[in-house]
Each structure stands twice: as structure tokens, then as C-alpha cells.
């Protein structure tokens, strides 16, 4: 079946099967490989995308469910070759090592800062609790989110 959705600002039509997930379609049909498949069970958050304004696990959405959706992946964060302030903050704070979980963290962070431009440490931890990182120990990530909030104009 053919579904229509908007990905990173581009309207697309894709032929999908009911047993494909949104993540399968993004990665294998559209070659948008920012979202990663970690657990495939909604536990690791590596596949997080922003879906109609909200972060979700794209591995838990059947492709046909995404008909009509507006989706933002990490590829859509960069504008005209310029990194998003969240991406800059992650680099400056060394908030990743292997990088596998990073696109998911960036998307969760983007959604958090949109609903709460100046989150407390506790609010950051809660918002990122669905994203696993096995390298950093999270401290640098939390610092990066704080820094990103400052860069994006929040008063601290």
C-alpha cells in the first residue's frame, strides 16, 4: 500500500507493507539511516524520531500507521550544512563516543527543549530516560543538553 508522509520537510510517497515498521522504511527504503535499530523493542531509543511533534520509537510504529505523519529525523536537524545548536553542544561537551545512540538522544533533546526551553537536571533525565547510552555514563549528555538550552536562548 502507498502511504504519504513528510520527512524532514519533504513530502514523500512510499510503497509499504503492513509488516514493515516505520524504522524499516526510513532505513531500507529511503536510506535515511540516522535512526538506528538497537533493540527493536522500544527499550533503547536509538530509533527515536520526532513524529507529529513528539518523540517516539520508530521501531514500534507499523509503516502504514505513518500515513499522513510529519516526521523529523536527525538528518533534518542540519540546515544548509550548518549544525543545529544541539549538535554543536553535543560535540563541545563530548557527549558521545561510539555515536550509535546519538541521533536518538538528539531527537529526544530537540523535543524536550521545544516543550521546555529551560529544563532542570531532573527534567532532562526524565526526558532522556528512554534513550540508552553504553559509552558516556550520561553526564556529558546532560551537560550538553544544558548547554544546548543556553545556546538556544533559555535564561539559566
Amino acid at each position, binding site marked *: 500500500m502507498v502511504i504519504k508522509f513528510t520527512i524532514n520537510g519533504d513530502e514523500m510517497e512510499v510503497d509499504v507493507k*503492513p*509488516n514493515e515498521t516505520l524504522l524499516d522504511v526510513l532505513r531500507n527504503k529511503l536510506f535515511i539511516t540516522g535512526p538506528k535499530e538497537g533493540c527493536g523493542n522500544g527499550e533503547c531509543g536509538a530509533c527515536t524520531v520526532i513524529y507529529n511533534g513528539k*518523540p*517516539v520509537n520508530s521501531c514500534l510504529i507499523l509503516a*502504514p*500507521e505513518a500515513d499522513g505523519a510529519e516526521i523529523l529525523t536527525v538528518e533534518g536537524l542540519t540546515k544548509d550544512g550548518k549544525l543545529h545548536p544541539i549538535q554543536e553542544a553535543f560535540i563541545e561537551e563530548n557527549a558521545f563516543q561510539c555515536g550509535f545512540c546519538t541521533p536518538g538522544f538528539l531527537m529526544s533533546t530537540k523535543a524536550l527543549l521545544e516543550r521546555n526551553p529551560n529544563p532542570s537536571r531532573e527534567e532532562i533525565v526524565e526526558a532522556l530516560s*528512554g534513550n540508552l547510552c553504553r559509552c558516556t555514563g550520561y553526564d556529558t549528555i546532560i551537560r550538553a543538553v544544558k548547554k544546548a538550552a543556553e545556546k538556544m536562548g533559555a535564561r539559566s
Partner: protein
Amino acid sequence: MIPLDFSYFRPTTLEEALDILSEEGMIPILGSTDVVVKLRARRLKPKGVVDLKAIEELHSFSFSKEEGMVIGAAVTMNELIEDHPEVKENYPVFYQAIKKVGAYQTRNRATVAGNIGNSSPAADSVPPLLTYNAKLKLVSKEGERTVELKDFFTGPGKNILKQGEIIHSIIVPYEGPSIGMYYKLSRIKAVDLSTIGVALTVIDPDGKRDIRIALASVAPTPIRVFEAEDFIRGKELTPEVVDEFAKIVQKNTSPITDTRGTKEYRYEMAYVLPKKILRELGLYEEVS
């Protein structure tokens, strides 16, 4: 790719949905957060999935002191947490519990109706709803019926829904102001299923002080312990009374050992947590 062939339907009216669902092998989906996991593990092998999210009336939410809270099946947990302050204000124990379901991402998709329909003994949204005397409106092609949530579950993953019948909405009566706590123990603080979950709700804490208690992950279904409630009703909360209350709660559990914990640990916690919650709520002091 899910190693299974099935079809997908997205009806826009309830009638159409119930028509498709009356056929053998069709299952409803809402947030699909449990269903996709089960499909992938081939624990569910439906002929087709019927996505109920395009049905407008299932997205409704209302609250009044007279009618209570009515949650449409398709309302997500994060909508209840973020968009409807009535939930936190009038059903604080339920609010605490749904904040502990999965992760933020999961709660943007997951629904309470789905949590109930999935019928896991570990469903976090259920114990508080049991303490608030929740009811379910079930609909099928044949008509509708309203059942008590406490009569809904029949075993792990099992419930009284018939083929073609869906949870239309959850009705939670308003019986007055309440305080309480949902205490969830899990192996990790972030995303995990409950090793044990205890909902203790006190309706009208400054008046009749009606204490209610329900638990997840200590029996084949979530349970409410009426025997303990009957025992404590009207009594002064002395250490002896609270201890006996906790013992009655514990006696009513029948936990098992699984990957999340042993039956001995769960049994012990079923005694420890009711006391701990009453203490943390400031309702009694332990004499040491």
C-alpha cells in the same frame, strides 16, 4: 521487518471498525507499543490489525465531579499527563503510575486502554484504576456493556473481551479528593516492567479516610485487596493495625519467580511497601 504476513485496516468510524473486527483473526491496535513487540516475537499471529486511531470519538476526554473521568481508548498516556490537568488533580495515584509506564517516547503512543487490553499482570496503569473503582465501556457489533475493571482480567494476557469486542472508554468515578502513592520497584529506574507495583489510595483523607490498595506483578492479574481495606476501615493507624494491614495484603498475593525478581522478594515487598507508603504519606509513625 516483522516475520509475519498480516493486513492493515484504518477505519474512520466505529461501525466500520467493529465490522472488520468481528472477523476471526483481527486484532485492534492503538499505540501498537505492545503489539509490535509481540508480533515481532510471533507471540501474536493475527490475520489483520485494525488501527483505531482514526476514529474521532475514541480520542475524547472529559471530567466532571458528577460524571467522573471518561478516557477514550485512543487517548495517549502523555496526553493524560500533559494536556489534562484534571488527571493529576483528581486522580493523583493514577497520574503517578502512568508517568512510570515505559519511557517518554512510549507514552507518546501508549494508551491506558491498550495497557488494560494487553492484560499484563505488570500493567502499571491498572492498580490505581482499581483503587478508583474504574469501569470499562466495551463495544462490539452486538452492542455495548459496561463492566467493572476488577472483573475484566482472567489471567496473564487474558481478559473477558470477546472476538470483535473492544474497550471503548475507561470510566473513573470521582468519589472526592484523594491522596496516595504508586510505588513501583523495578530493576532499573528508566524503562522497565514492574517487579512489583503497589497503588495505595486514600479517598477523602480529611474526612472518611477510605484506604484502598491494589498491586501489580504479584498475581496472575493485577489485584485489589478488599480484605485488607475492610480490616483497616475506621481504625486508628497504630503500628499494630498497619502491620496487620500489610500482612493481609501480603497473604493475598501469589507471586512467581521470573527474570525480574524472585517470588520470595515480591512476597516480602508486598508486606514492606504498604507500610512504607502509609509512612511516607505521613499517616502513621513507626515506633522504633
